[in-house]
Protein backbone atom coordinates (compact mmCIF):
# COMPACT_ATOMS: atom_id res chain seq x y z
CA UNK A 1 0.00 0.00 0.00
CA UNK A 2 2.84 2.34 0.72
CA UNK A 3 6.40 2.44 -0.36
CA UNK A 4 7.52 4.12 2.81
CA UNK A 5 10.06 2.18 4.77
CA UNK A 6 9.94 4.83 7.42
CA UNK A 7 7.95 4.14 10.58
CA UNK A 8 6.33 7.60 10.24
CA UNK A 9 7.84 8.88 13.47
CA UNK A 10 10.31 11.29 11.89
CA UNK A 11 10.20 12.52 8.30
CA UNK A 12 13.49 12.64 6.42
CA UNK A 13 12.97 16.16 5.04
CA UNK A 14 10.45 17.87 7.24
CA UNK A 15 11.20 21.30 5.78
CA UNK A 16 9.58 20.43 2.45
CA UNK A 17 6.39 19.09 3.93
CA UNK A 18 2.98 20.53 4.74
CA UNK A 19 1.82 20.42 8.36
CA UNK A 20 -1.70 19.47 9.40
CA UNK A 21 -2.63 19.57 13.08
CA UNK A 22 -5.48 18.10 15.08
CA UNK A 23 -5.49 20.51 17.97
CA UNK A 24 -6.76 19.77 20.50
CA UNK A 25 -7.56 16.08 20.32
CA UNK A 26 -11.17 16.16 21.53
CA UNK A 27 -13.50 13.79 23.34
CA UNK A 28 -10.55 12.61 25.38
CA UNK A 29 -9.47 13.73 28.80
CA UNK A 30 -5.99 15.12 28.63
CA UNK A 31 -4.10 17.72 26.69
CA UNK A 32 -2.90 16.41 23.37
CA UNK A 33 -2.53 17.30 19.73
CA UNK A 34 -1.58 15.38 16.63
CA UNK A 35 0.61 16.68 13.84
CA UNK A 36 0.90 15.16 10.37
CA UNK A 37 3.47 16.05 7.75
CA UNK A 38 2.45 15.48 4.13
CA UNK A 39 4.05 16.00 0.75
CA UNK A 40 2.53 17.54 -2.40
CA UNK A 41 0.94 14.23 -3.30
CA UNK A 42 -0.72 13.94 0.11
CA UNK A 43 1.57 11.12 1.10
CA UNK A 44 2.02 10.98 4.85
CA UNK A 45 5.61 11.18 6.12
CA UNK A 46 5.27 11.87 9.80
CA UNK A 47 2.60 11.36 12.45
CA UNK A 48 3.01 12.30 16.10
CA UNK A 49 0.81 12.52 19.15
CA UNK A 50 2.18 15.30 21.33
CA UNK A 51 1.27 15.64 24.99
CA UNK A 52 1.66 19.36 25.40
CA UNK A 53 1.48 19.99 29.11
CA UNK A 54 4.23 19.84 31.69
CA UNK A 55 3.09 19.73 35.30
CA UNK A 56 5.95 18.65 37.52
CA UNK A 57 4.01 16.85 40.25
CA UNK A 58 7.01 14.58 40.86
CA UNK A 59 9.06 17.60 41.77
CA UNK A 60 6.69 19.71 43.85
CA UNK A 61 5.44 16.79 45.94
CA UNK A 62 8.95 16.69 47.40
CA UNK A 63 9.16 18.22 50.83
CA UNK A 64 5.52 17.45 51.59
CA UNK A 65 4.67 15.05 54.43
CA UNK A 66 4.07 11.56 53.07
CA UNK A 67 0.45 11.36 54.22
CA UNK A 68 -0.47 14.21 51.91
CA UNK A 69 0.46 12.25 48.80
CA UNK A 70 -2.81 10.29 48.43
CA UNK A 71 -4.90 13.48 48.39
CA UNK A 72 -2.43 15.64 46.52
CA UNK A 73 -1.33 13.46 43.67
CA UNK A 74 -4.87 12.48 42.66
CA UNK A 75 -5.16 16.01 41.27
CA UNK A 76 -3.21 14.70 38.29
CA UNK A 77 -6.47 13.37 36.93
CA UNK A 78 -10.06 14.17 37.74
CA UNK A 79 -11.41 11.23 35.76
CA UNK A 80 -9.53 8.59 37.69
CA UNK A 81 -8.51 10.37 40.91
CA UNK A 82 -9.25 7.20 42.86
CA UNK A 83 -6.45 5.42 40.97
CA UNK A 84 -3.86 7.89 42.15
CA UNK A 85 -5.46 8.10 45.57
CA UNK A 86 -5.10 4.33 45.98
CA UNK A 87 -1.75 3.83 44.23
CA UNK A 88 -0.22 6.52 46.48
CA UNK A 89 -1.89 4.94 49.51
CA UNK A 90 -0.45 1.54 48.61
CA UNK A 91 3.01 3.07 48.36
CA UNK A 92 2.47 4.72 51.75
CA UNK A 93 1.28 1.39 53.20
CA UNK A 94 4.84 0.23 52.53
CA UNK A 95 6.27 3.38 54.09
CA UNK A 96 4.34 2.79 57.32
CA UNK A 97 4.97 -0.97 57.12
CA UNK A 98 1.26 -1.80 57.15
CA UNK A 99 -0.52 -4.99 56.25
CA UNK A 100 -4.07 -3.89 55.56
CA UNK A 101 -6.98 -5.12 57.66
CA UNK A 102 -9.68 -6.96 55.67
CA UNK A 103 -12.01 -4.00 56.11
CA UNK A 104 -9.47 -1.52 54.80
CA UNK A 105 -8.61 -3.60 51.78
CA UNK A 106 -12.22 -4.28 50.89
CA UNK A 107 -13.32 -0.67 51.27
CA UNK A 108 -10.46 0.34 48.99
CA UNK A 109 -11.37 -2.35 46.50
CA UNK A 110 -14.96 -1.16 46.50
CA UNK A 111 -13.80 2.40 45.86
CA UNK A 112 -11.52 1.24 43.06
CA UNK A 113 -14.08 -0.91 41.26
CA UNK A 114 -16.60 1.93 41.60
CA UNK A 115 -14.11 4.05 39.78
CA UNK A 116 -13.51 1.44 37.07
CA UNK A 117 -17.24 1.37 36.49
CA UNK A 118 -17.73 5.13 36.30
CA UNK A 119 -14.65 5.75 34.18
CA UNK A 120 -15.45 2.99 31.68
CA UNK A 121 -19.07 4.16 31.42
CA UNK A 122 -17.96 7.73 30.85
CA UNK A 123 -15.54 6.70 28.18
CA UNK A 124 -17.88 4.42 26.28
CA UNK A 125 -21.10 6.41 26.44
CA UNK A 126 -20.08 10.05 26.75
CA UNK A 127 -16.89 10.07 24.72
CA UNK A 128 -16.71 7.20 22.23
CA UNK A 129 -20.32 6.24 21.50
CA UNK A 130 -20.75 9.11 19.02
CA UNK A 131 -18.05 7.62 16.75
CA UNK A 132 -19.22 4.07 17.22
CA UNK A 133 -22.94 4.70 16.76
CA UNK A 134 -22.87 7.39 14.06
CA UNK A 135 -19.69 6.57 12.14
CA UNK A 136 -16.20 8.00 12.22
CA UNK A 137 -16.89 10.57 9.51
CA UNK A 138 -20.42 11.45 10.57
CA UNK A 139 -21.62 15.05 10.98
CA UNK A 140 -19.35 16.81 13.44
CA UNK A 141 -22.25 18.79 14.89
CA UNK A 142 -24.00 15.62 15.98
CA UNK A 143 -20.91 13.59 16.89
CA UNK A 144 -21.17 14.03 20.68
CA UNK A 145 -23.20 12.92 23.69
CA UNK A 146 -25.93 15.42 22.80
CA UNK A 147 -26.37 13.70 19.46
CA UNK A 148 -26.46 10.32 21.18
CA UNK A 149 -29.08 11.58 23.64
CA UNK A 150 -31.22 12.81 20.76
CA UNK A 151 -31.05 9.65 18.67
CA UNK A 152 -30.55 6.91 21.28
CA UNK A 153 -32.06 8.40 24.46
CA UNK A 154 -32.19 5.05 26.23
CA UNK A 155 -28.50 4.34 25.60
CA UNK A 156 -27.52 7.82 26.74
CA UNK A 157 -29.62 7.51 29.87
CA UNK A 158 -28.06 4.17 30.78
CA UNK A 159 -24.61 5.62 30.28
CA UNK A 160 -25.37 8.55 32.56
CA UNK A 161 -26.88 6.32 35.26
CA UNK A 162 -24.07 3.75 35.10
CA UNK A 163 -21.56 6.50 35.62
CA UNK A 164 -23.69 7.93 38.42
CA UNK A 165 -23.72 4.60 40.22
CA UNK A 166 -19.93 4.32 40.05
CA UNK A 167 -19.61 7.89 41.32
CA UNK A 168 -21.93 7.09 44.21
CA UNK A 169 -19.80 4.07 45.16
CA UNK A 170 -16.84 6.45 45.24
CA UNK A 171 -18.72 9.04 47.27
CA UNK A 172 -19.71 6.47 49.87
CA UNK A 173 -16.17 5.10 50.23
CA UNK A 174 -14.05 8.21 49.61
CA UNK A 175 -16.27 10.95 51.03
CA UNK A 176 -16.82 12.80 47.78
CA UNK A 177 -17.16 11.98 44.12
CA UNK A 178 -14.05 13.70 42.81
CA UNK A 179 -10.87 13.98 44.91
CA UNK A 180 -12.07 12.20 48.03
CA UNK A 181 -10.07 11.41 51.13
CA UNK A 182 -11.12 7.90 52.17
CA UNK A 183 -7.84 6.08 51.65
CA UNK A 184 -4.91 6.88 53.96
CA UNK A 185 -1.48 5.36 54.62
CA UNK A 186 -2.11 1.99 56.25
CA UNK A 187 -5.84 1.80 55.56
CA UNK A 188 -9.00 3.86 55.21
CA UNK A 189 -10.67 6.49 57.38
CA UNK A 190 -14.20 5.14 57.23
CA UNK A 191 -16.05 1.90 56.70
CA UNK A 192 -19.33 1.39 54.85
CA UNK A 193 -22.39 1.58 57.08
CA UNK A 194 -25.40 -0.70 56.68
CA UNK A 195 -27.44 2.25 55.39
CA UNK A 196 -24.81 3.10 52.81
CA UNK A 197 -24.56 -0.51 51.77
CA UNK A 198 -28.32 -0.80 51.37
CA UNK A 199 -28.42 2.41 49.39
CA UNK A 200 -25.93 1.00 46.88
CA UNK A 201 -27.47 -2.48 46.84
CA UNK A 202 -30.75 -0.96 45.68
CA UNK A 203 -29.31 -0.24 42.23
CA UNK A 204 -26.70 -2.94 41.80
CA UNK A 205 -28.79 -5.49 39.88
CA UNK A 206 -29.88 -2.84 37.39
CA UNK A 207 -26.25 -1.77 37.06
CA UNK A 208 -25.19 -5.31 36.25
CA UNK A 209 -28.01 -5.71 33.72
CA UNK A 210 -27.12 -2.48 31.93
CA UNK A 211 -23.44 -3.41 31.95
CA UNK A 212 -24.34 -6.66 30.23
CA UNK A 213 -26.30 -4.72 27.64
CA UNK A 214 -23.28 -2.50 27.11
CA UNK A 215 -21.08 -5.52 26.37
CA UNK A 216 -23.77 -6.51 23.87
CA UNK A 217 -23.55 -3.13 22.14
CA UNK A 218 -19.77 -3.43 21.84
CA UNK A 219 -20.07 -6.93 20.47
CA UNK A 220 -22.69 -5.98 17.91
CA UNK A 221 -20.48 -3.19 16.63
CA UNK A 222 -17.86 -5.79 15.84
CA UNK A 223 -20.36 -8.17 14.29
CA UNK A 224 -21.74 -5.48 12.03
CA UNK A 225 -18.39 -4.14 10.87
CA UNK A 226 -16.17 -7.16 11.32
CA UNK A 227 -13.38 -6.50 8.84
CA UNK A 228 -13.27 -2.78 9.41
CA UNK A 229 -13.23 -3.07 13.20
CA UNK A 230 -10.62 -5.81 13.14
CA UNK A 231 -8.19 -3.98 10.91
CA UNK A 232 -8.70 -0.37 12.00
CA UNK A 233 -5.45 1.01 13.44
CA UNK A 234 -4.15 -2.46 14.12
CA UNK A 235 -0.55 -2.99 15.23
CA UNK A 236 1.48 -5.71 16.92
CA UNK A 237 2.56 -5.06 20.46
CA UNK A 238 4.04 -6.42 23.65
CA UNK A 239 1.82 -6.20 26.72
CA UNK A 240 2.09 -5.40 30.43
CA UNK A 241 -0.47 -5.93 33.19
CA UNK A 242 -0.94 -6.99 36.78
CA UNK A 243 -2.40 -10.43 37.52
CA UNK A 244 -3.42 -12.11 40.75
CA UNK A 245 -1.34 -15.06 42.11
CA UNK A 246 -3.53 -17.54 40.27
CA UNK A 247 -3.44 -15.55 37.02
CA UNK A 248 -6.88 -14.02 37.51
CA UNK A 249 -7.77 -10.48 36.49
CA UNK A 250 -7.29 -8.30 39.57
CA UNK A 251 -7.33 -4.54 39.22
CA UNK A 252 -6.30 -3.75 42.81
CA UNK A 253 -3.26 -5.89 43.39
CA UNK A 254 -0.96 -8.51 41.87
CA UNK A 255 2.34 -9.18 40.16
CA UNK A 256 3.47 -7.85 36.81
CA UNK A 257 3.10 -9.96 33.68
CA UNK A 258 4.77 -9.03 30.39
CA UNK A 259 4.36 -10.86 27.14
CA UNK A 260 5.93 -10.20 23.77
CA UNK A 261 4.22 -9.76 20.42
CA UNK A 262 4.09 -13.50 19.89
CA UNK A 263 2.55 -14.21 23.25
CA UNK A 264 5.76 -15.45 24.84
CA UNK A 265 5.94 -14.61 28.53
CA UNK A 266 8.84 -12.29 29.37
CA UNK A 267 8.16 -12.19 33.10
CA UNK A 268 5.26 -13.18 35.28
CA UNK A 269 4.10 -12.50 38.86
CA UNK A 270 6.95 -10.06 39.04
CA UNK A 271 7.20 -8.18 42.34
CA UNK A 272 6.51 -4.58 41.38
CA UNK A 273 8.38 -3.13 44.34
CA UNK A 274 11.49 -3.09 42.15
CA UNK A 275 9.77 -2.36 38.83
CA UNK A 276 12.77 -0.33 37.68
CA UNK A 277 14.67 -3.55 37.05
CA UNK A 278 12.24 -4.33 34.21
CA UNK A 279 10.84 -0.96 33.11
CA UNK A 280 12.77 2.08 31.97
CA UNK A 281 11.65 5.32 30.37
CA UNK A 282 12.82 7.25 27.36
CA UNK A 283 12.24 10.89 26.45
CA UNK A 284 11.54 12.25 22.98
CA UNK A 285 11.90 15.95 22.26
CA UNK A 286 8.39 16.32 20.85
CA UNK A 287 6.28 15.23 23.83
CA UNK A 288 6.18 15.98 27.54
CA UNK A 289 4.97 12.43 28.04
CA UNK A 290 7.74 9.88 28.48
CA UNK A 291 8.09 6.62 26.60
CA UNK A 292 8.43 3.59 28.91
CA UNK A 293 9.88 0.33 27.65
CA UNK A 294 10.80 -3.14 28.83
CA UNK A 295 14.48 -3.02 29.69
CA UNK A 296 15.21 -6.49 28.39
CA UNK A 297 14.04 -5.48 24.89
CA UNK A 298 15.53 -1.99 24.77
CA UNK A 299 14.08 1.45 24.01
CA UNK A 300 13.46 0.82 20.30
CA UNK A 301 11.71 -2.53 20.55
CA UNK A 302 10.56 -2.66 24.14
CA UNK A 303 7.43 -0.49 24.10
CA UNK A 304 4.16 -2.15 25.05
CA UNK A 305 0.45 -1.66 25.55
CA UNK A 306 -1.50 -1.60 28.83
CA UNK A 307 -5.19 -1.22 29.71
CA UNK A 308 -8.46 -3.11 29.31
CA UNK A 309 -7.59 -4.85 26.05
CA UNK A 310 -4.32 -6.12 27.48
CA UNK A 311 -5.81 -7.16 30.80
CA UNK A 312 -8.79 -9.02 29.38
CA UNK A 313 -6.69 -10.87 26.81
CA UNK A 314 -3.66 -11.58 29.00
CA UNK A 315 -5.26 -12.67 32.28
CA UNK A 316 -5.93 -16.39 32.68
CA UNK A 317 -9.54 -15.82 33.70
CA UNK A 318 -11.93 -13.24 35.13
CA UNK A 319 -13.05 -14.27 38.60
CA UNK A 320 -16.74 -13.32 38.17
CA UNK A 321 -19.05 -15.50 36.07
CA UNK A 322 -20.84 -13.05 33.77
CA UNK A 323 -17.70 -11.22 32.75
CA UNK A 324 -15.78 -14.49 32.35
CA UNK A 325 -18.43 -15.80 29.96
CA UNK A 326 -18.15 -12.59 27.95
CA UNK A 327 -14.36 -12.81 27.95
CA UNK A 328 -14.53 -16.27 26.41
CA UNK A 329 -16.84 -15.04 23.68
CA UNK A 330 -14.53 -12.12 23.02
CA UNK A 331 -11.50 -14.43 22.70
CA UNK A 332 -13.40 -16.79 20.40
CA UNK A 333 -14.90 -14.12 18.14
CA UNK A 334 -13.77 -14.52 14.53
CA UNK A 335 -10.86 -16.75 15.48
CA UNK A 336 -9.59 -14.31 18.10
CA UNK A 337 -9.15 -11.39 15.73
CA UNK A 338 -10.79 -8.82 17.99
CA UNK A 339 -8.24 -9.42 20.75
CA UNK A 340 -5.53 -7.66 18.75
CA UNK A 341 -7.74 -4.95 17.26
CA UNK A 342 -7.34 -1.38 18.47
CA UNK A 343 -11.13 -1.07 18.60
CA UNK A 344 -11.16 -4.26 20.68
CA UNK A 345 -10.39 -1.89 23.54
CA UNK A 346 -14.05 -0.90 23.63
CA UNK A 347 -15.31 -4.44 23.88
CA UNK A 348 -12.74 -5.36 26.54
CA UNK A 349 -13.56 -2.19 28.47
CA UNK A 350 -17.22 -3.11 28.63
CA UNK A 351 -16.34 -6.63 29.82
CA UNK A 352 -14.34 -5.00 32.60
CA UNK A 353 -17.23 -2.71 33.44
CA UNK A 354 -19.45 -5.77 33.83
CA UNK A 355 -16.78 -7.39 35.98
CA UNK A 356 -16.57 -4.26 38.14
CA UNK A 357 -20.34 -4.33 38.67
CA UNK A 358 -20.16 -7.98 39.73
CA UNK A 359 -17.27 -7.31 42.12
CA UNK A 360 -19.14 -4.38 43.65
CA UNK A 361 -22.16 -6.59 44.26
CA UNK A 362 -20.05 -9.28 45.92
CA UNK A 363 -18.24 -6.74 48.09
CA UNK A 364 -21.49 -5.10 49.16
CA UNK A 365 -22.62 -8.46 50.53
CA UNK A 366 -19.41 -8.84 52.53
CA UNK A 367 -19.82 -7.97 56.25
CA UNK A 368 -16.14 -6.96 56.44
CA UNK A 369 -17.21 -3.62 54.95
CA UNK A 370 -18.79 -2.81 58.31
CA UNK A 371 -15.64 -3.79 60.24
CA UNK A 372 -14.12 -1.23 62.57
CA UNK A 373 -10.41 -2.00 62.26
CA UNK A 374 -9.51 0.53 59.65
CA UNK A 375 -5.79 1.27 59.96
CA UNK A 376 -2.66 -0.72 60.70
CA UNK A 377 0.98 0.16 61.20
CA UNK A 378 4.25 -1.77 61.15
CA UNK A 379 7.91 -1.05 60.77
CA UNK A 380 8.63 2.23 59.06
CA UNK A 381 10.33 1.96 55.66
CA UNK A 382 12.13 4.54 53.54
CA UNK A 383 10.79 3.50 50.15
CA UNK A 384 7.27 2.74 48.96
CA UNK A 385 6.00 1.53 45.62
CA UNK A 386 2.28 1.25 44.87
CA UNK A 387 0.99 -0.29 41.66
CA UNK A 388 -2.60 -0.87 40.60
CA UNK A 389 -4.49 -1.44 37.38
CA UNK A 390 -6.26 1.89 36.86
CA UNK A 391 -9.11 2.18 34.32
CA UNK A 392 -6.54 2.95 31.62
CA UNK A 393 -3.86 0.49 32.66
CA UNK A 394 -0.96 -0.16 34.98
CA UNK A 395 -0.22 2.77 37.28
CA UNK A 396 3.05 3.07 39.20
CA UNK A 397 3.69 5.37 42.16
CA UNK A 398 7.12 5.38 43.77
CA UNK A 399 8.22 7.50 46.75
CA UNK A 400 11.15 7.86 49.10
CA UNK A 401 10.45 9.39 52.50
CA UNK A 402 13.08 10.67 54.92
CA UNK A 403 13.23 10.52 58.71
CA UNK A 404 11.31 13.78 58.96
CA UNK A 405 8.38 12.13 57.15
CA UNK A 406 9.00 14.28 54.11
CA UNK A 407 8.85 12.94 50.59
CA UNK A 408 12.29 13.30 49.07
CA UNK A 409 11.78 11.51 45.78
CA UNK A 410 8.82 10.65 43.61
CA UNK A 411 8.42 8.85 40.31
CA UNK A 412 5.05 8.30 38.68
CA UNK A 413 4.43 6.24 35.57
CA UNK A 414 0.76 6.78 34.80
CA UNK A 415 -1.32 4.48 32.66
CA UNK A 416 -1.52 6.67 29.61
CA UNK A 417 2.26 7.09 29.65
CA UNK A 418 2.69 3.32 29.28
CA UNK A 419 0.54 3.57 26.15
CA UNK A 420 2.42 6.52 24.67
CA UNK A 421 4.25 4.64 21.94
CA UNK A 422 1.31 2.29 21.37
CA UNK A 423 -0.99 5.27 20.70
CA UNK A 424 1.57 6.66 18.27
CA UNK A 425 1.74 3.28 16.53
CA UNK A 426 -2.07 3.13 16.30
CA UNK A 427 -2.39 6.54 14.67
CA UNK A 428 0.44 5.78 12.25
CA UNK A 429 -1.35 2.61 11.30
CA UNK A 430 -4.54 4.62 10.70
CA UNK A 431 -2.60 7.17 8.66
CA UNK A 432 -1.23 4.42 6.42
CA UNK A 433 -4.62 2.76 6.06
CA UNK A 434 -6.93 5.73 5.49
CA UNK A 435 -5.07 9.02 5.08
CA UNK A 436 -2.05 8.32 2.92
CA UNK A 437 -2.48 9.82 -0.55
CA UNK A 438 -5.97 11.19 0.20
CA UNK A 439 -7.29 14.72 0.39
CA UNK A 440 -7.73 15.15 4.10
CA UNK A 441 -11.24 15.82 5.37
CA UNK A 442 -12.52 16.43 8.88
CA UNK A 443 -13.94 12.91 8.84
CA UNK A 444 -10.61 11.36 7.87
CA UNK A 445 -8.83 13.30 10.58
CA UNK A 446 -11.41 12.06 13.06
CA UNK A 447 -10.24 8.54 12.20
CA UNK A 448 -6.94 9.44 13.84
CA UNK A 449 -8.76 10.62 16.94
CA UNK A 450 -10.90 7.49 17.02
CA UNK A 451 -7.71 5.45 17.33
CA UNK A 452 -6.47 7.63 20.19
CA UNK A 453 -9.83 7.51 21.93
CA UNK A 454 -9.74 3.71 21.93
CA UNK A 455 -6.98 3.97 24.55
CA UNK A 456 -9.05 6.40 26.62
CA UNK A 457 -6.01 8.59 27.34
CA UNK A 458 -6.03 10.98 30.26
Amino acid at each position, binding site marked *: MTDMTDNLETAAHAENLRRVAIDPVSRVEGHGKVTLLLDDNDRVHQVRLHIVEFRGFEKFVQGRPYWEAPVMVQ*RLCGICPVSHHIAASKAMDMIVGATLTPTAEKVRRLMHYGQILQSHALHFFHLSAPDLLFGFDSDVAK*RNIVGVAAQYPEV*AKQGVLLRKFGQEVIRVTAGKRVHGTGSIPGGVNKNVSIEERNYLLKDIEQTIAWSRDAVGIARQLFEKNQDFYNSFGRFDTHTLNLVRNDGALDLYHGGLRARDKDGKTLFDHYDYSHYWDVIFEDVKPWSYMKFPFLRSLGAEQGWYRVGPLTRVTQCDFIPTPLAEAQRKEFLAFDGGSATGATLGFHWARMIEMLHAAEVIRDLLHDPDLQGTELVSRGERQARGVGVIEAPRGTLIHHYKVDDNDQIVRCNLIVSTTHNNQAMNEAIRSVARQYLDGKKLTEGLLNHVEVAIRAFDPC
Partner: protein
Amino acid sequence: MNDKKKLRVATTSLAGCFGCHMSLLDIDERLFPLLDLVEFDRSPLTDIKHCGPCDIGIIEGGICNAENVHVLREFRKNCRILISIGACAVTGGLPAQRNHLDLGSCLTEVYLTEPGLAHGHIPNDPELPLPLDKVHPLHEVVKIDYFIPGCPPSGDAIWKFLTDLIAGKTPELGHGLIKYD
Protein backbone atom coordinates in the same frame (compact mmCIF):
# COMPACT_ATOMS: atom_id res chain seq x y z
CA MET B 1 -37.86 22.71 18.25
CA ASN B 2 -36.93 25.86 20.09
CA ASP B 3 -33.25 25.56 19.15
CA LYS B 4 -33.07 29.28 18.54
CA LYS B 5 -33.41 30.12 22.18
CA LYS B 6 -30.74 27.73 23.44
CA LEU B 7 -27.79 29.32 25.13
CA ARG B 8 -24.45 28.40 23.65
CA VAL B 9 -21.86 27.14 26.14
CA ALA B 10 -18.16 26.51 25.63
CA THR B 11 -15.94 24.73 28.16
CA THR B 12 -12.27 23.87 28.29
CA SER B 13 -9.60 22.52 30.60
CA LEU B 14 -6.37 24.51 30.69
CA ALA B 15 -3.88 23.54 33.43
CA GLY B 16 -6.53 21.43 35.14
CA CYS B 17 -7.23 17.77 35.75
CA PHE B 18 -10.72 17.53 34.18
CA GLY B 19 -12.14 17.01 37.67
CA CYS B 20 -14.24 20.17 37.29
CA HIS B 21 -15.63 18.76 34.05
CA MET B 22 -16.38 15.54 35.92
CA SER B 23 -18.32 17.60 38.43
CA LEU B 24 -20.25 19.17 35.59
CA LEU B 25 -21.23 15.64 34.55
CA ASP B 26 -22.05 14.90 38.19
CA ILE B 27 -25.32 16.70 37.62
CA ASP B 28 -26.16 13.16 36.40
CA GLU B 29 -29.55 12.82 34.72
CA ARG B 30 -30.14 16.56 35.08
CA LEU B 31 -27.88 16.68 32.02
CA PHE B 32 -30.89 15.93 29.83
CA PRO B 33 -33.08 18.87 30.91
CA LEU B 34 -29.95 21.03 30.70
CA LEU B 35 -29.57 19.99 27.07
CA ASP B 36 -33.02 21.43 26.38
CA LEU B 37 -31.68 24.81 27.46
CA VAL B 38 -28.11 24.90 26.20
CA GLU B 39 -26.01 23.66 23.33
CA PHE B 40 -22.28 23.06 23.44
CA ASP B 41 -19.64 24.85 21.42
CA ARG B 42 -15.98 23.93 22.00
CA SER B 43 -15.78 21.48 24.90
CA PRO B 44 -13.98 18.22 25.67
CA LEU B 45 -17.40 16.67 24.94
CA THR B 46 -17.61 17.91 21.33
CA ASP B 47 -15.32 17.99 18.31
CA ILE B 48 -15.46 21.75 17.90
CA LYS B 49 -11.82 22.78 18.13
CA HIS B 50 -12.15 26.56 18.42
CA CYS B 51 -14.49 28.59 20.53
CA GLY B 52 -17.04 30.55 18.49
CA PRO B 53 -19.48 33.21 19.72
CA CYS B 54 -21.04 31.92 22.95
CA ASP B 55 -23.23 33.06 25.79
CA ILE B 56 -21.31 31.27 28.52
CA GLY B 57 -17.70 30.11 28.74
CA ILE B 58 -16.58 27.81 31.54
CA ILE B 59 -12.88 27.28 32.15
CA GLU B 60 -11.18 24.91 34.56
CA GLY B 61 -7.46 24.98 35.21
CA GLY B 62 -5.02 27.85 35.46
CA ILE B 63 -2.48 29.09 32.96
CA CYS B 64 0.74 27.08 32.73
CA ASN B 65 1.90 27.61 29.14
CA ALA B 66 1.65 29.94 26.17
CA GLU B 67 -1.07 27.89 24.53
CA ASN B 68 -3.29 28.27 27.62
CA VAL B 69 -3.04 32.06 27.28
CA HIS B 70 -4.08 31.82 23.66
CA VAL B 71 -7.12 29.65 24.36
CA LEU B 72 -8.14 31.80 27.32
CA ARG B 73 -8.08 34.93 25.15
CA GLU B 74 -10.11 33.16 22.48
CA PHE B 75 -12.72 32.31 25.10
CA ARG B 76 -12.78 35.83 26.47
CA LYS B 77 -13.24 37.27 23.01
CA ASN B 78 -16.14 34.98 22.21
CA CYS B 79 -18.01 34.47 25.49
CA ARG B 80 -20.40 37.03 26.88
CA ILE B 81 -20.00 35.57 30.35
CA LEU B 82 -16.77 33.88 31.38
CA ILE B 83 -16.68 31.65 34.44
CA SER B 84 -13.54 30.58 36.27
CA ILE B 85 -14.36 27.22 37.81
CA GLY B 86 -12.41 25.35 40.48
CA ALA B 87 -9.34 26.03 42.58
CA CYS B 88 -6.93 25.80 39.65
CA ALA B 89 -8.70 28.46 37.59
CA VAL B 90 -9.41 30.68 40.60
CA THR B 91 -6.01 30.52 42.31
CA GLY B 92 -3.73 28.34 40.18
CA GLY B 93 -4.53 25.41 42.47
CA LEU B 94 -2.25 22.47 43.04
CA PRO B 95 -0.27 22.90 39.79
CA ALA B 96 0.82 26.31 41.17
CA GLN B 97 2.79 24.44 43.83
CA ARG B 98 5.56 24.53 41.30
CA ASN B 99 5.64 28.35 41.53
CA HIS B 100 8.12 28.34 44.38
CA LEU B 101 10.47 26.17 42.36
CA ASP B 102 12.66 27.00 39.44
CA LEU B 103 11.05 25.72 36.23
CA GLY B 104 14.41 24.75 34.79
CA SER B 105 15.25 22.56 37.76
CA CYS B 106 11.79 20.92 37.61
CA LEU B 107 12.33 20.05 33.95
CA THR B 108 15.86 18.89 34.66
CA GLU B 109 14.81 16.60 37.43
CA VAL B 110 11.88 15.07 35.58
CA TYR B 111 13.53 14.66 32.16
CA LEU B 112 17.28 14.56 32.75
CA THR B 113 18.38 13.32 36.13
CA GLU B 114 15.53 10.94 37.09
CA PRO B 115 17.36 7.60 37.56
CA GLY B 116 14.77 5.54 35.65
CA LEU B 117 15.60 7.24 32.36
CA ALA B 118 17.46 5.71 29.46
CA HIS B 119 18.31 8.90 27.55
CA GLY B 120 17.48 12.06 29.40
CA HIS B 121 16.54 15.11 27.33
CA ILE B 122 14.31 18.10 28.05
CA PRO B 123 11.51 18.15 25.46
CA ASN B 124 11.99 21.23 23.28
CA ASP B 125 10.20 20.64 19.98
CA PRO B 126 8.53 23.74 18.50
CA GLU B 127 5.24 21.83 18.59
CA LEU B 128 5.29 21.99 22.38
CA PRO B 129 3.91 25.21 23.84
CA LEU B 130 6.41 27.03 26.02
CA PRO B 131 5.77 26.47 29.71
CA LEU B 132 5.46 29.66 31.74
CA ASP B 133 7.77 30.05 34.69
CA LYS B 134 4.75 30.31 36.99
CA VAL B 135 1.21 28.95 36.95
CA HIS B 136 -1.32 31.79 37.00
CA PRO B 137 -5.03 32.06 37.82
CA LEU B 138 -7.23 33.11 34.90
CA HIS B 139 -8.13 36.56 36.19
CA GLU B 140 -4.51 37.65 36.01
CA VAL B 141 -4.79 37.42 32.23
CA VAL B 142 -8.37 38.33 31.29
CA LYS B 143 -11.47 39.72 32.97
CA ILE B 144 -13.54 36.99 34.63
CA ASP B 145 -17.25 37.44 35.34
CA TYR B 146 -17.80 34.73 37.93
CA PHE B 147 -15.66 32.50 40.14
CA ILE B 148 -16.78 29.14 41.51
CA PRO B 149 -14.33 27.83 44.12
CA GLY B 150 -13.78 24.20 45.14
CA CYS B 151 -11.63 21.34 44.01
CA PRO B 152 -13.87 20.59 42.32
CA PRO B 153 -17.11 22.43 43.11
CA SER B 154 -19.85 19.81 43.42
CA GLY B 155 -22.26 18.86 40.66
CA ASP B 156 -25.03 20.43 42.77
CA ALA B 157 -23.15 23.71 42.96
CA ILE B 158 -22.61 23.77 39.21
CA TRP B 159 -26.25 22.92 38.60
CA LYS B 160 -27.48 25.69 40.88
CA PHE B 161 -25.11 28.17 39.35
CA LEU B 162 -26.00 27.35 35.74
CA THR B 163 -29.74 27.16 36.25
CA ASP B 164 -29.70 30.54 38.01
CA LEU B 165 -27.67 32.03 35.22
CA ILE B 166 -29.84 30.53 32.49
CA ALA B 167 -32.94 31.83 34.25
CA GLY B 168 -31.47 35.31 34.08
CA LYS B 169 -30.83 35.59 37.82
CA THR B 170 -27.62 36.48 39.59
CA PRO B 171 -26.26 33.06 40.57
CA GLU B 172 -26.21 32.42 44.28
CA LEU B 173 -24.47 29.52 45.94
CA GLY B 174 -25.67 29.30 49.49
CA HIS B 175 -24.38 27.36 52.45
CA GLY B 176 -23.16 23.88 51.59
CA LEU B 177 -22.54 24.66 47.94
CA ILE B 178 -19.53 26.92 48.39
CA LYS B 179 -16.46 24.93 49.37
CA TYR B 180 -12.78 25.63 49.37
CA ASP B 181 -11.27 22.15 49.26
